[in-house]
């Protein structure tokens, strides 16, 4: 029953996706009109391509720094022994 519901939902989503005029809905899908516009296309493409890498890279750098910090603290403290 659940599988049939999922298949029906997927079918509805597929039909809806063919209904929408996806290309016409994009506000920036047109040719560049002048030098400023061309530069804006290039700059925003670079910006949007680099930003996810920068964000994920920054997150990983922060996580690695925190791990090093924690490991440094753990190695400084003496091992806990039971009674």
């Amino acid at each position, binding site marked *: 029953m659940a599988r049939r519901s999922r298949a029906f939902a997927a079918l509805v989503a597929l039909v809806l996706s063919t209904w929408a005029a996806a290309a016409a809905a994009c506000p920036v899908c047109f040719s560049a*009109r002048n030098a*400023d516009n061309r530069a804006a296309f290039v700059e925003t493409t670079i910006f949007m391509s680099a930003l996810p890498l920068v*964000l994920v890279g920054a997150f990983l750098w922060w996580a690695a720094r925190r791990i090093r910090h*924690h490991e440094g603290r753990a190695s400084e403290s003496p091992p806990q022994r039971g009674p």
Partner: protein
Amino acid sequence: MGTESRLAISRGTGEVVAFPVSPRRRPIASSGVIGMTLFVIAETMFFAGLVSAFTIVKTTALTPWPPPNQPRLPIESTAVNTLALLVSGVVLLVSSRHFARDAARAVRWLALSAGLGAFFVVFQGAEWVALLAEGLTMKSSTHGAFFYLIVGAHGLHALAALGGLCWALLRARRGTLAPDAFATVRVFWYFVVALWPLLYWRVYL
């Protein structure tokens, strides 16, 4: 750090055997902070998309930007508001420094930060009312549509983050604010503060 070991009974032979286990790792940050950081990353991409679309549309305009028949954005007064928001972020940083040592002082700084945040949100609201009265609406031009979309999206984030700050303030006054919860709220507020100057630069200037 020495290797720890645990004892277990072997299924096959029934003997007691010792096997090494790695020491349990402590989390690098609370779940709230990591979750909020991931949310902030997603929201950064959302705003990057809006600003990119705005930049393209702005350079495509056939008339000067902003359009001649549309009201000018209040650059100078919003600069003052921007300053208030930046100071709010710095004050929150000071509050977090005091939080572990002197809770009463941290509450005072936190209240100041929330007050400055509230000032920013109220000022933005007053600015919108004035611009609407002058004729800048979502439908009056592409300029108006992008202005309300980008600044409005930031305003909603500011409002939500301000709610978080007020919640933290109430908890801190009662002495029940957990450090992890405070850190989570701070991440959101720092995002709102850090994002605004970029939006001001792209939309207002």
